[in-house]
């Protein structure tokens, strides 16, 4: 038996006010009916019309889907590929900024991130790395026609787009975060570089080697942030810099999708990639709370490598650097530069 939708909605609205009479006053203004009529609806003596239901849900930003589908296994994701269409990099990045800004307004909430590949946010530390990522997503997955015939060089992403990525980075640095990384976190980016070298997609092959340099520098910076347990910009003084906390875990055991969970005004919001780099989003409290539990379970089975645990941290980042060096050597041979 499903609970009655009218009482669920009205209870949700009334619970947001310290006094019932305040809620009644607000409802009477929105529906343009007298207070007596509101009380009749609260008691269930008068039924809400569908138009009143939608007026109230919209005015109080209540999800009817969450009420209607509460007891089923069904829930809704929104999918960014359908909403913005990602006709340009601005569109694509603006989607991220909107979400990050919402999370930023909730200073006490953690930003959880589990990933099997280098999280996008870390590539923002180096314009060369984010330019390369945007180029290959634009070319292969976002399907931007103008990129299909172009080889990569560092000027391919215009400065105004890079300024947007700088803004994203500033917000990301401010967010307190818990990140679970799998041992293969760097493999995919290395594969992408190797693929583009093999297919002759670099305008200047030496740019590929520059990407290896930047990846190595990035590994040192992330290791430093992990050591201090906080995020800060490149070259900043870790002691004095203001940034969100950074708890990094080595998740060697549980396979994960790229998943992020953040606190927002309405509660929590969940993101997961599908058709990478596109992502799905849900604010359904059931899936968000399930995922928070999942994050905590996986953290329990993972090795913390921030702040303490120097030995594990050194091992983890040395392994990443070995992979970078190994890939670099292989590609130098391929390019005939050894």
């Amino acid at each position, binding site marked *: 038996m*499903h609970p009655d*939708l*009218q009482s669920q909605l009205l209870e949700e609205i009334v619970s947001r006010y310290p006094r019932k009479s305040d809620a009644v006053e607000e409802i009477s203004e929105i529906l343009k009916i007298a207070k007596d009529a509101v009380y009749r609806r609260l008691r269930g003596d008068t*039924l*809400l*019309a*569908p*138009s009143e*239901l*939608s007026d109230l*849900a*919209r005015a109080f930003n209540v*999800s*009817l*889907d969450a009420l*209607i589908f509460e007891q*089923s*296994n*069904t*829930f*809704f*994701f*929104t*999918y*960014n590929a*359908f*909403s913005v269409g990602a006709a340009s990099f601005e569109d694509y990045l603006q989607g991220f900024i909107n979400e990050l800004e919402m999370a930023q307004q909730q200073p006490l909430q953690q930003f959880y991130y589990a990933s*099997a*590949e280098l999280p996008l946010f870390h590539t923002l530390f180096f314009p060369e790395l984010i330019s390369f990522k945007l180029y*290959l997503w634009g070319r*292969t*997955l976002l*399907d931007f026609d103008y990129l299909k015939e172009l080889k990569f060089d560092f000027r391919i992403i215009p400065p105004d787009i890079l300024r947007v990525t700088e803004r994203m980075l500033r917000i990301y640095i401010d967010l307190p975060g818990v990140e679970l990384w*799998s*041992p*293969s976190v760097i*493999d*995919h980016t290395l*594969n*992408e570089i*190797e*693929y583009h070298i093999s297919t002759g997609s670099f305008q200047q092959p030496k740019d590929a080697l520059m990407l290896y340099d930047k990846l190595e520098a990035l590994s040192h910076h992330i290791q430093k942030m992990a050591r201090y347990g906080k995020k800060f910009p490149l070259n900043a003084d870790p002691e004095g810099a203001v940034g969100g906390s950074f708890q990094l875990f080595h998740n*060697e*055991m549980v*396979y*994960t*999708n*790229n998943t992020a969970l953040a606190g927002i005004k309405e509660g929590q919001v969940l993101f*997961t*990639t*599908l*058709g*990478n780099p596109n992502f*799905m989003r849900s604010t359904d409290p*059931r*899936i968000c709370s*399930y995922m928070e539990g*999942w994050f905590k*379970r*996986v953290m329990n089975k993972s090795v913390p490598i921030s702040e303490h645990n120097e030995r594990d941290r050194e091992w983890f980042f040395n392994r990443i650097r070995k992979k970078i060096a190994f890939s670099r050597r292989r590609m130098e041979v391929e390019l005939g530069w050894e």
Partner: protein
Amino acid sequence: MNQSLQDYLFERILNTFPKRSAAVEALGKLMGLGKDAVYRRLRGHTLLSLDELAALAREFKVSLDDYLFSRADSVVFSYSSFSQTISSYRDYLDSVSRNIERIYLLPEKHFYYATSEIPLFHYCHFPEVIGFKLYVWARTIWSVPKIKEQAFHFDLLSQEDQRITSELLNMYNDIPSTELWHLNIVDNTLNQIEYHVNIGGFQRPEDALVLCDRLLELCEHIRKMAAFGHKYRMGGEPQATATRTFDLFHNEMVFTNNNFLAVTPVGKVIFTTYCNPNFLKCTDERMCNFTEDWFKNITSKSIAISNHAEKNRSWYFNTLHRKIERVRTRISNQVEEGF
């Protein structure tokens, strides 16, 4: 916004029927109303009660939030973990079997699989391997109490569980598939084996070596299936039938979750693992078509390693072989030292 919530809901429902009369009949049956009463509601002459509204939205999986907040990007998913709590291996295997059987029974179906981990069905070639994977998931994801307290041993997988995994493999082998695999396809399982060796999670540590040996045999079998271009059981006789084709690609470029798309004459369905091995399921036409295009796009950028592509296939499987051997050597040293 001129369209009312009631009009919006009916429009979405009517779109799922080929003919308006079929929709009216279904609505009448569902709401216990005559055709005239349904038509009055469709025309807006009679307002739906909120309970009717909720029941229809629930039945036809229509998002009312799309209407309220002017969204056009919602996709409905169902999540296996919400419909059923997994409290035994059987619960999970039954749920996978139910979903696969529905597809298996249809004619002219095809699977597309993009994955960073060996697809579950291949593990079913060896009870030891599927048994270990189920054990790991039961401990870490489903928190099954009786498993959480035990070290791993091969007898944890019952005869009945083995029968179900064997049937799953038969069904999977009988459905033509196109699979896009990463090079790190064995990494997660190898990490899990080493992790359990390190925490003393094997009742007999030597069993970790048996698992590595089975993985080597499994990779060898998959190599043979790829060479033949068809699926068959380990030790069985390969048969070149259209229902068993196996097109394997090495996807070296595009990171993917474990995504699975089934295309059938009656529609398409996507499964994507979420909190692996739990899965999200979606039959939304727009999402399925988008995913099918995504598969085609990735396939075009991937390297064929089945049928004639011997050089690429050898390189790919030799790399997997070396990864497994390296881990086997490390574990063997630990076992000898009595770790």
